[in-house]
């Protein structure tokens, strides 16, 4: 199962990177969202899958899945959510100010 999930994470990364290389701001933000999905899956896979019960202690059960990657991913989800929403508003503002969301046109000028 881990092998297959690794491949899935790879696919998410590949599509995320492809979108990152596009011109349009919205697509770039799609790309970052996909990349963070890929990263979360990656972390989860590293913690080994399906080895026991969910990490909520119940009398009589000895085997639980690794809780640490889950804690890390939970933190990461929240952070990437913050970043994504910030980026979205940034894209909105950039478009309002510059009348374009094409990154090739948003290059700044020589005096910056």
């Amino acid at each position, binding site marked *: *199962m*881990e*092998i297959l*999930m*690794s491949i*899935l*994470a*790879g*696919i*998410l*990364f*590949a*599509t*995320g*990177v*492809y979108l990152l*290389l*596009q*011109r*349009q701001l*919205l697509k770039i933000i*799609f790309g970052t*969202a*996909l990349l963070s*999905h*890929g990263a*979360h*899956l990656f972390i989860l*896979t*590293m*913690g080994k899958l*399906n*080895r026991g019960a969910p*990490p*909520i202690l119940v009398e009589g059960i000895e085997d639980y*899945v*690794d*809780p640490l990657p*889950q*804690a890390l*991913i*939970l*933190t990461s*989800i*929240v*952070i990437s*959510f*913050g970043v*994504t*929403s910030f980026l979205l*508003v*940034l*894209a*909105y*503002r950039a*478009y309002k*100010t510059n009348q374009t969301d094409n*990154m*090739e046109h948003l*290059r700044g000028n020589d005096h910056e």
Partner: protein
Amino acid sequence: MSIMLFFSILAPFIAACLVPFLFRYKRTIHTGWLVLPIPILLFLYFLLQIPNISGGNNIHLIINWIPSIGMNLSFYLDGLSLLFTLLITGIGTLVVLYSIYYLNKKEKLHNFYVFLMIFMGAMLGVVLSDNVFVLYLFWEFTSLSSFLLIGYWYHRERSRYGAFKSMIITVFGGLSMLGGLILLTIMTDTTSIREMIESKESVINSPYFTGTLLLILLGAFTKSAQFPFHIWLPDAMEAPTPVSAFLHSATMVKAGIYLSARLFLLFGGSDLFFILVTGFGLLTLCWGSYMAVRQTDLKAILAYSTISQLGMIMAMIGFGTEVAIFAAIFHIFNHATFKGSLFMIAGIVDHESGTRDIRKLGGLMTLMPISATLALFGTFSMAGVPLPFLNGFLSKEMFFKTATQISPTAPLVDQLFIIIPVLAVLGSIFTFVYSMYFFFQTFMGKSKETLEIKPHEAPIGMLVSPIVLVTFIVVIGLLPNLINEPILAPATAAVFGTVPEEHIAFWHGEINTPLLMSLAVVVLGTLLYLTRKKWSHVYRLLPGVLSANKAYDAVYEGHLRLSRKTTNMYMTGSLRHYVLYILLFLVASGGITLVVTDGFAFSTSDVAPISWPEIMVGIVMAIAAIATVFMQNRIAAILVLGVVGYGLSLLFVFFRAPDLALTQLIVETVTVALFLLCFYHLPKLDTKKQSTGTKTVNILISASVGILVTLVAIASHSSKRFETIAHYFIDESHHLGGGDNVVNVILVDMRGLDTMFEITVLGLAALGIYAMIRLRKEEEID
């Protein structure tokens, strides 16, 4: 008493600190008068050391500075240092005196004297330092102060160009020298020059010997304006004339000579030292004197003349015989006297007639008789005219003598040695020509009417300094042995190790080869001077296109162009390109590491069993992810992206992560909502086709990133390094954290700090969003 040596170096620096105050509060007096006592006192101090030094009692002083790396303020006064300190302080005194009359009170005098005092202190530091790093420190101080002095009239374009050029060339040499000095320190395990000379064997036998020698000579050659690094000196003539007289004829340009002489005992025996120093010295001698004839600016003639004379001294140090060293020392002294006075006279001519262009000058003899007389002595001494009262002749004849004596002692091919006296004579002939040109064109002939001011004799204060220097020319010319015993002999002893039995005399009582060479120089030189109009077109052939200045400019401009081109090539301003660089580096470094370290592993021994619901969700997610790339409709793209997110939360459910599934569900929902909110304001998706090339690159890069991530994931999963620490959390969650949901206990208890900052991140994002939307300039609000 040896502590006085330290204060002698410190005094000019202290003076430099005080000059601005003196300038400010004593506006009625020319600041130069207030500075003048410093060099006079120092000169007297060093004069008083002569009996000590010639008696063999050298002064040594060490003050701790940074003992841990062997950097101590270690100063040493021997014959060679004494000669240089006397030149620096003596000519320094005369130059300060001269500058009082040369520079108007309206000039920025505080700047001038601050720079000059820094230079004087630095130069004293160079010649007195025994520690190589302290020597280097003062060496760069001279470069810096020279830069400041050349650029003294900084509103002039040419001054800035000259200052910049000299800075680049001398600092280039200085840094090379630092490299050489560091190598020397490593080889000999000491930072003291005298101790290095004692362990000479370890230097000569070292495999780094050649490199060290080359690096140090590079420093000496750039500073002393040897070919092809001589080009900064003529451009440094934009400095005020007192500066040219002091720095660029008498003192700073001799720092390289000083260094070569100081390290002579270390390198002197080697063939490479002989070849390089003699070769470049003679080349510089000939090229400098040849180029000097062509100049039309008085100071430019003197600049090339300085180059050529420095080449001559360098060549003599290269010869490396006892007499040659003695002659070199003698000529250092003589050159300082006649070149200092000639610069001052050029300054006077400029000051009193308004031009330095030799084509506009002429017939100043009757108008400026004193200056003309002084110039006569100076130029004839420079030319080496065989008259008994000119010191230049004496040292030049010794130069010829050493040039003819060189062949039997050195262990190289004999036939080549005939070229040394020939080059020496050739250089001297051109020296004779430009000396005559300088004197006769300026002071003889008809006076021209084109001058703006009517030329007149300079004030007496301006004439004092050249008169003193010319007095030296004559006195030493008449009585050369006056300075032999007290100054020249100890200096030679310091360079060569032994004292020569040399008696300087005008007439040796016989007609010998050097005398014949001198006569040949005079005869041929006169012929060439008289016919110079007929052969002056050779300058179109040589240097012609082979000008070192053009090479410098081309290198400099080319360098700027190249760096601009390089920067423009990769700094395109396009985000896509920068992301590409980052990803390319990631793929390359990751891929190479995987291959080189054989890091890839594949093992299915420890994997969870495959179950179909999970596979189905995975496939759906993969399809959705790939579909996002191709979506041309915004809503469809957002929804398909949502499929990936919800798929992930389903996977979290399957993989027994209830908290994650919950959070992912909520976050995904909110994100999709946000996307939907924003897309309303954003333009439609770009459906314009990208070029196939761009597309291919994008696909290749993203595919390789994906493959790399997959490989890393599989490899790290397949190679088990150590046990997980999960059991600690599971065992202690209830007991220590008081909770049964282990993930939550980790988040708020065991790793609570992460959570705190994650909350901070969220808060900051919220604040940022608020700021972006609300805080705008009035006129920007839609």
